[in-house]
């Protein structure tokens, strides 16, 4: 098969699987997951073939002549709106991680939804499975039960995979947007998968509405781009001449160039999809969906799509930034990214829900990437995108495995505890060794554990670029965020896996079935190994030994637009800083949280002033020092400043003030204007309103022809107007 044909076919199997499951196979769980997994394996196979072929072509050649094919979508007079497929090095690496994570998540979902378990005792559609009673060896006990909407899950998730593939292989922004919206729909459906839970419904709506805000701006950007250039295909739009022209014509607002303004609009789309401040609010709530969904949304696909988009339109942003007369969008992007990175990291420190910590961490890591794009380090951003996809998918799936194990324990013991709260866990490393080791690898990658993990290399590269480009504000913000990242990661690992079980449930937790552990193992290979393809040149010793593949590969894409910067003498400061913050954070996290032994114990950081005394008896003065020096401020920043003050007091305060104001206004109106009026002229007013109602009621006659008449009359009037102006002017 030719490359182009393969590219065309790539998104189709999941779509087909979706259709098949929805239309025919939804009665059979086995057929549903078989078809779904088969479809994504097919897509995976195609992706791998394409990836290998792309490798064979080589970065330079592929960037010069990307695999590209297109069809007429709508024949128009001047420009042909075409749909097509496109594969350049950036697409290739994106396809690589998308294909792998999607397959892993699909396989994992089989285990997560308890395939092979009996039907639940009182499970119903729209609620998570509650467990089933089975009789074994003469006595009854509870085991997990199969998800009642098993087939539906696979249908949705297949559609989701289709959306992602469509987005990645499309050669223009319109189909990209189509894929983007399909994913938006699927994330809505999947977050609200257990639709009878109030919270899930709310979360689904919240996610949908919040991302919508970004999408509208993005659509505006796309429309503006189409108006400005007459095309949406990458090959047309990212033509140096077109870019030059766009960058030199002023946009009507904000003192920006057209390129910058379009870039900013598209970036707002990214802000929504990739959950950047201030549109980050939906992502933590999206944890209401099943865990594979969280992995899907927060790691492999949807949030990555935002960053993918912004890397994809990087030439536009770059061109805009090059022209000094106009305001550049880049600092805005850098600021939002860096701020989000720090802001989300501080929140993550104070969370107890295992998935919620990861959610905030995702926001923070996406902030890293966005900040990297904002300082012009798109290669570093892409690199972190890929490594993050792997280790965050791993972490989410790992957390799902933990929750699953805990649920098993909860069902067994009948305790009424939250299986997602880390304080209820502890000591799981012995119960769930595979989950533990893989989670450890993922966590270390997230924390940027030096040299061996992928996260280190990508994060280090971002820090290095920031330092080299003299973006010191970004650099230090990201460094602090990295420290916090390492800290909360270790906190999570410590609370979950280390120490002793703090509840009965944790004691009875189980390792999960192979369908869940195998994906974890596969992903952990990538979480470690993927970093080794992108070791920077200047890195001592290893830089010379290991390939510098990723930088060359992705770097080749935008070669045309971005002049290669002269080799800056890379200092070792960022390297040292990144090693320091990562190791420091990890150590800190471990040291602070290893003492948690009871489930109802308050967080060591949250200890109010009183119990400090009791703590003093403890021999960990070291803890206190750290707590005082770093942790408490960090916690304060997280809890008091960011959460209570910024979030609760300021943002909520404004909202409440508005609410109170309007309520008061309403009271005022009611008491001093409305009631007297009603007393005085109530009847007259009522009659008047009724009269008006009667009058206007005639408009809504419910008759088709009436509406048609009015519509046609307007059309006629409008046409006459148009004609009048067209001929007069």
């Amino acid at each position: 098969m030719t490359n182009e044909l393969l590219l065309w076919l790539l998104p189709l199997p999941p779509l087909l699987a979706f259709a098949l499951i929805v239309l025919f196979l939804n009665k059979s769980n086995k057929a549903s997951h078989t078809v779904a997994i088969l479809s994504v394996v097919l897509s995976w196979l195609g992706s791998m073939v394409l990836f290998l072929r792309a490798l064979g072509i080589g970065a330079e050649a592929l960037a010069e002549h990307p695999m590209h094919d297109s069809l007429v979508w709508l024949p128009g007079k001047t420009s042909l709106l075409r749909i097509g497929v496109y594969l350049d090095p950036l697409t290739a690496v994106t396809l690589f991680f998308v294909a792998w994570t999607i397959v892993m998540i699909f396989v994992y979902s089989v285990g997560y939804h308890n395939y092979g378990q009996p039907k639940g005792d009182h499970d119903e559609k729209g609620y998570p499975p509650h467990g089933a009673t089975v009789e074994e060896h003469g006595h009854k006990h509870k085991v997990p039960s199969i998800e009642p909407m098993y087939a539906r899950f696979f249908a949705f998730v297949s559609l989701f995979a289709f959306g992602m593939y469509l987005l990645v292989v499309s050669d223009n922004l319109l189909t990209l947007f189509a894929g983007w919206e399909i994913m938006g729909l699927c994330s809505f459906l999947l977050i609200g998968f257990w639709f009878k839970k109030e919270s899930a419904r709310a979360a689904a709506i919240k996610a949908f509405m919040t991302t919508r805000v970004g999408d509208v701006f993005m659509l505006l950007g796309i429309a503006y781009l189409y108006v400005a250039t007459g095309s949406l295909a990458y090959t047309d739009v990212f033509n140096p001449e077109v870019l030059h022209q766009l960058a030199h014509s002023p946009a009507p607002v904000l003192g920006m160039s057209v390129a910058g303004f379009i870039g900013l609009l598209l970036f707002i789309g990214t802000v929504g999809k990739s959950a950047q401040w201030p549109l980050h609010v939906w992502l933590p709530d999206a944890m209401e969906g099943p865990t594979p969904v969280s992995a899907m949304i927060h790691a492999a696909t949807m949030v990555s799509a935002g960053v993918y988009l912004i890397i994809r339109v990087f030439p536009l942003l770059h061109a805009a930034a090059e022209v000094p007369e106009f305001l550049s969008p880049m600092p805005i992007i850098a600021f939002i990214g860096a701020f989000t990175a720090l802001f989300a990291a501080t929140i993550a420190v104070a969370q107890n829900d295992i998935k919620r910590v990861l959610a905030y961490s995702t926001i923070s890591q996406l902030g890293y990437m966005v900040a990297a794009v904002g300082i012009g380090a798109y290669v570093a951003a892409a690199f972190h995108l890929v490594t993050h996809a792997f280790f965050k998918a791993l972490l989410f799936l790992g957390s799902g495995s933990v929750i699953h194990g805990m649920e098993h324990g909860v069902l067994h013991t009948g305790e009424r505890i939250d299986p997602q709260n880390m304080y209820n866990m502890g000591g799981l490393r012995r119960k769930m060794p595979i989950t533990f080791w893989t989670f450890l690898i993922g966590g270390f990658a997230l924390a940027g554990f030096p040299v061996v993990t992928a996260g280190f290399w990508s994060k280090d590269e971002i820090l290095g670029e920031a330092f080299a480009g003299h973006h010191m504000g970004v650099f230090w913000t990201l460094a602090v965020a990295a420290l916090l990242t390492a800290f909360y990661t270790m906190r999570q690992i410590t609370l979950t896996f280390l120490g002793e079980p703090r509840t009965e449930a944790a004691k009875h937790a189980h390792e999960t079935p192979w369908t869940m552990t195998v994906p974890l193992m596969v992903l952990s290979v990538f979480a470690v190994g993927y970093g080794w393809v992108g070791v920077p040149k200047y890195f001592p010793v290893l830089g010379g030994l290991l390939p510098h593949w990723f930088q060359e590969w992705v770097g080749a894409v935008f070669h045309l637009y971005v002049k290669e910067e002269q080799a800056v003498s890379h200092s070792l400061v960022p390297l040292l800083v990144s090693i320091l913050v990562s190791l420091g954070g990890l150590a800190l996290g471990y040291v602070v949280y290893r003492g948690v032994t009871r489930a109802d114990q308050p967080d060591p950081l949250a200890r109010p002033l009183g119990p400090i005394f009791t703590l003093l008896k403890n021999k960990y003065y070291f803890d206190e020092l750290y707590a005082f020096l770093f942790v408490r401020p960090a916690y304060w920043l997280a809890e008091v400043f960011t959460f209570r003050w910024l979030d609760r007091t300021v943002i909520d305060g404004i909202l409440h003030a508005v609410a109170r104001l309007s309520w008061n206004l309403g009271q005022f109106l009611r008491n001093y204007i409305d009631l007297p009026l009603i007393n005085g002229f109530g009847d007259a007013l009522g009659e008047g309103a009724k009269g008006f109602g009667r009058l206007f009621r005639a408009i809504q006659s419910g008759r088709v022809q009436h509406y048609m008449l009015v519509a046609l009359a307007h059309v006629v009037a409008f046409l006459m107007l148009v004609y009048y102006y067209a001929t007069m002017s």
Partner: protein
Amino acid sequence: MIPLGAYLMVSAALFVIGAFGALARKSAVAILIGLELMFNAALLNAVAFWRYLHPQGFDGTVFAIVILAVAAAEVAVGLALFIAVYRRFGTAEADEIALLRG
């Protein structure tokens, strides 16, 4: 050769008559007939424009084919609705069916 304007006039006449039918008739089927007349006017326009302005291209013809398909679909669905409405209300006079009346 007949000027293009003559075709446009015929088409305009059909369109207006069809519009009047769609707006003024009582029976749902008659409204459909009016709509069909309007479709035909559009069709005639498309073909005439094709012939006079761009006879080498395919846009006009393809447009006409699409109009044909849409008209067929419209009639199929319209008549199905008509039959369903008739079954439900026992009448097919469009102005008597006003469930959405405000």
